[in-house]
């Protein structure tokens, strides 16, 4: 199993180099943003908007937090391209090799999951370092809150990764783009269905000019910062289901991995 994981990591070698550049870029940009939001042009702009009553302090804080969340999500999102391994395996015809190795189907499937989680682990570790640096530079958001965001983001990416792996096995080689589309669709539909009442409320309030949408953003941020354990629990369940279903798919479609 370790050998397959090593092979998968070799497949991701180029992606890892790109990842290193992106992490460096994100770190620089986020530090610039934080410093500007505290002492520079962004801070001045925020002050003037508050003076003109166009935005409240809460709104500005939300915007700053969302911006930082976007920075934080980038490293985790960058390690999340699970399909690279499947694309490369399919192109090489690696199933010829993997199917004759002295590894059970369970172990061969498990290797894929562990590789992906290892990549997410790297993303999380990098994010923790970045958030620690940023939390020392700003009072917009604390390290504890950053940590909540990281767990939420990682959980979301794990859910996405687990779904992509499942769909890649289901659809077969050469259909990785469909797997991405299906995974995004499942996540989007689930989020919409889970928040259907709030979404209706936002559209209603927007039509009458209310600011309930801002409350929705506050609720959303509150959820991902302080209730990350919910997403983490969902991620664990999705991974377990995805793994067992994938094993069954691969057993039925012999020669897939």
């Amino acid at each position: 199993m370790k050998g397959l994981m090593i092979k998968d990591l070799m497949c991701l070698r180029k992606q890892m180099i790109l990842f290193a550049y992106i992490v460096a870029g994100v770190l620089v940009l986020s530090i610039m943003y934080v410093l500007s939001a505290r002492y520079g042009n962004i801070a001045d702009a925020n002050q003037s908007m508050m003076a003109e009553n166009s935005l409240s302090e809460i709104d500005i804080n939300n915007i700053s937090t969302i911006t930082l969340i976007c920075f934080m999500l980038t490293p985790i999102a960058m390690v999340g391209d699970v399909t690279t391994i499947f694309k490369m395996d399919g192109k090489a015809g690696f199933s010829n090799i993997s199917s004759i190795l002295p590894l059970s189907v369970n172990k061969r499937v498990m290797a894929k999951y562990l590789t992906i989680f290892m990549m997410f682990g790297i993303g999380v570790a990098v994010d923790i370092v970045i958030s620690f640096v940023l939390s020392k530079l700003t009072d917009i958001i604390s390290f504890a809150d950053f940590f909540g965001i990281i767990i939420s983001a990682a959980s979301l990416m794990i859910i996405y990764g687990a779904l992509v792996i499942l769909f890649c096995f289901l659809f077969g080689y050469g259909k990785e783009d469909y797997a991405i589309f299906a995974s995004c669709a499942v996540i989007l539909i689930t989020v919409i269905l889970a928040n259907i009442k709030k979404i209706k409320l936002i559209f209603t309030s927007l039509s009458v000019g209310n600011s309930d949408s801002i409350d929705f953003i506050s609720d959303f941020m509150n959820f991902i910062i302080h209730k990350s354990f919910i997403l983490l629990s969902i991620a664990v369940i999705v991974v377990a289901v995805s793994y067992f279903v994938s094993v069954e798919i691969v057993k039925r479609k012999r020669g897939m991995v």
Partner: protein
Amino acid sequence: MQRGKNMNVIEIKNATKDFGDFKIDQISFAVPEGSVCGFIGQNGAGKTTTIKLILDVLNVDAGEIYVFGQNIKDDSAKLREDIGVVFDEMGFHEFMTGKDINIMMKNIYKNWDEKVFFDYLKRFSLPVKKQCGSFSRGMRMKLQIAVALSHNAKLLIMDEPTSGLDPIVRNEMIQIFREYVLEEDHTILLSSHITGDLEKLADEVVFINGGKIVLAGNKDDIIEKHGLLKCKKDDLKDINESFIVYAQSGTYGVEVLVNDRRACAKLYPEMIIEQASLEDIMLFYVNRSISGTYGKTSDRSDATE
């Protein structure tokens, strides 16, 4: 079943696999330990499918397959520790070097011997640090063979390893296979439609056509028994039907593959009977299957066409 003398390393009993448009139909054969078994058949005859069934890459619909005396359904993953496999396509990622493959394999095979692996790479003149995507077909095959031979495999299963290779590389490979079977407990199952290679190497031969085994046994016995009888079209009617595998028009008359050369030689001393090659035997059996006719009467009509 224990490992030991006269043990069958591979034993297939009535294995069936139905794909709808193609079927492996109740095939049975055995490969004795220490032998080289040539698995012959034209393209699409079912060689690769049978190999995949043996390796448990595909599930059998019915029947049983034993490898090293154990049913492959029991623990095929463990059994594969002792099996080296070479497919006609490489399967390694093009960016991988010999070094990368060594790192991967030593973390998969318990008995992986990296010294043996690098020795083979050196012997085959394969660069260790060059990406295998830039290798020629011959080099790719050699790389696969190096991998298959580097984990102390007791059984080597190869699917068309020599197809598409030039004669020099093919001979080089045959030499390697010969060296491999010098060890008493080493066995080879080699699928090919290049019968010349198998004539040089194989002890046993299994003939598959249209998903059915048409002939199986000791290669020398098969070659010894079969003969290519050449006669005039009019003489065909004199030959006992039970001897005729298939008859077809030749340059100067009719060529008949007979299944008992010595008996025919005694019965028909005036007719020329040559020793049949594996290729002749394969072609006549395949043609018989294609025409769907067996025996003299139909063969005669074919011969007169």
